[in-house]
């Protein structure tokens, strides 16, 4: 058994999970909204990139760049016109609405794109790899991991270095007081979801080039994202990355013992973290 390779592949896989989870973490951290349609929104973005790639013949990375503002606008509108209406003291309405949204998205995509298993073509990049001493690293998984780190660095900069970030944190801490200080929570929430959709688009780029996707694959991808967010501690973006890596490494190490253990090992790691640190590794604030 090649332990170095196993762990490295797990870390790289963790980057993919962290990308899936970063948008979820952002939205939950700011407005305590659990978006059950997150996985389906990743699939929507993947189809958008696919349409741009196959329709206009764009490079997938360029296509993702074009998709970013579109998804930002879609996220902004989704939050402003729909999800804001569900926010309140009761945590049930947002859950129900996003659950419904998930079903609507899946069936709309099925109607529009059929049930075909699709993939964003990335040419020779798909199978390229770099020899790193005793192990070989695929270029795409490496790019995925580096993108995850870049996304988290940028999000942290926005959060802690800009006026917008200050408004995010203030609204998250105390909506009423933030409102008194001239922050408009509804617009802040809409912007936050817009940014989350930008992250979703980046995740979609790597999901779409890594493996096939079809309209119904979203929810299956959501569970690891949830686990990564919870392991990391709610609201901590670096925690989300670490959470993703923990799940990824647990999965590859579990699989190295026996493939039957692969998914289970990830879930077990999640349960162990919950047992030892019920609020996750780096909880940002006390709720």
């Amino acid at each position, binding site marked *: 058994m090649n332990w170095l390779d196993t762990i490295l592949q797990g870390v790289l896989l963790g980057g993919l999970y962290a990308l899936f989870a970063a948008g979820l973490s952002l939205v939950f951290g700011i407005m305590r909204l659990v978006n059950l349609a997150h996985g389906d929104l990743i699939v929507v973005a993947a189809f958008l990139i696919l349409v741009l790639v196959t329709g206009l013949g764009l490079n997938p990375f360029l296509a993702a760049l074009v998709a970013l503002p579109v998804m930002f606008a879609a996220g902004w509108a989704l939050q402003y016109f729909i999800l804001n209406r569900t926010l309140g003291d009761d945590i049930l309405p947002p859950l129900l609405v996003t659950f419904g949204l998930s079903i609507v998205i899946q069936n709309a995509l*099925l109607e529009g794109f059929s049930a075909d*298993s*699709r993939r964003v073509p990335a040419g020779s990049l798909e199978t390229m790899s770099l020899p790193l001493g005793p192990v070989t690293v695929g270029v795409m*998984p490496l790019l995925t991991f580096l993108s995850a780190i870049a996304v988290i660095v940028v999000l942290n900069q926005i959060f802690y270095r800009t006026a917008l970030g200050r408004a995010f944190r203030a609204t998250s801490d105390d909506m009423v007081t933030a409102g008194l200080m001239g922050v408009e929570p509804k617009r802040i929430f809409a912007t936050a979801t817009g940014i989350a959709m930008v992250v979703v688009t980046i995740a979609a780029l790597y999901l779409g080039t*890594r493996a096939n996707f079809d309209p119904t694959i979203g929810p*299956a991808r959501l569970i690891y994202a949830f686990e990564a967010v919870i392991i990391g501690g709610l609201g901590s973006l670096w925690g989300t990355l670490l959470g993703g890596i923990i799940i990824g490494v647990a999965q590859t190490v579990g699989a190295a013992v026996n*493939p039957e253990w*692969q998914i289970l090992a990830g879930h077990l790691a999640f349960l162990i973290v919950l047992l030892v640190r019920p609020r996750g590794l780096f909880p940002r604030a006390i709720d």
Partner: protein
Amino acid sequence: MITRRKLLKTAAASGLVAAAGPLPMPAIAQGRAVKIGYVSPQTGPLAAFAEADAFTIDMFREVTGKLGLDIEVIVKDSQSNPNRAADVARELIVDDSINLMVVASTPETTNPVTTTCEAEQVPCISTMAPWQPWFIGQQANPGAPDSWKPFAYAYHFFWGLEDVIAVFTNMWAQVETNKKVGGLFPNDGDGNAWGDPNVGFPPVLTKQGYTLTDPGRYQNLTDDFSAQINAFRQANVEIITGVMIPPDFTTFWNQAKQQGFTQKVASMGKAILFPQAVEALGNSGNNLSSEVWWSPSHPFKSSMTGMSSADLAAGFTVATKRPWTQPIGFIHALFEVALDVVKRSNDPTDGAAVAAAIAATKMDTIVGPVAWDGANLPPFAQKNVSKTPLVGGQWRLKDGGGYDLVITDNKTAPNIPTGGKMEPIA
């Protein structure tokens, strides 16, 4: 005095007379619509199997209209969910009082529907699931062969696990390899059956001199296959086989290429059934091999329309602007058998008579001969299963992009022509 009971009795008697009245006139008796219920996964992850539904049913209605037969087809969507499949089957039986059920596409659809029909004593024709998961999967105790019972109303036509094993090993024999095989079997109905140490691939491979490396059952939608790749590499594997879902196969295939692990042969069930799934692999899908249940080059004709396999596939492409897929032939054959059964049964509204008519079927369909005569089957399945031919093929990259499925091995069904020889993956 008129009592409630008397009234009911009289009403029933007069009703009987009224019903019996037209009986001597067969023309009117025939005028009664025969209702066929059809359950298929039109939405959800299995929807690709049901792609040809509307196309086939339109054709069926046109043919029955021309023949002057009053046959109504009621279609229900299983949403790729076994529970929902059982529910809609019950709706069809109870609310729509159907006379015959037809069902297709994976054990997740065929099994709940067939079980419901058997319990409600409604005749049922099923297809597109290997016969073992269909027959054994519906038994009260799949683990105890002694307890397996045949069905009175349920009939199935498709191939079985033994056929796919024969097809794969025949294909491998055409290529020079070190006979070391790596198995990728997921932890689902198909994966457990294929990898079963008694009825699956392992015993046959050992007998034929192959060494199988089977790292174990993985979960579907796994994102990393480095453990399997490492195991195959250590065992110096040159042949890959298994029954993966398309996203997992893509993940495995790319990861293997990234790790510089190449094979001479890759025969995969399920994952590369549809041309769209092979195209999703870009240019790296060349010479992947899989089982072929039906293709436009199968030398069979439709008993319903007289079309050849090539005509049917071309007709589908013209009508839907989509490439042909293997389920098209089988959905067509399913309705061919249904039409034949309705035509032959003396009273299509009598469940037992229809079941007897299904059992007596002996016909040539677009997927080959269908007859429940028990040929090439173990005794317990002889009554309810009819086997259709299975061959093997390779996907070849076309010059202008896209893939062609070329039949490369027909030892299991020599009447189906091959289009080329097996080529090792470059």
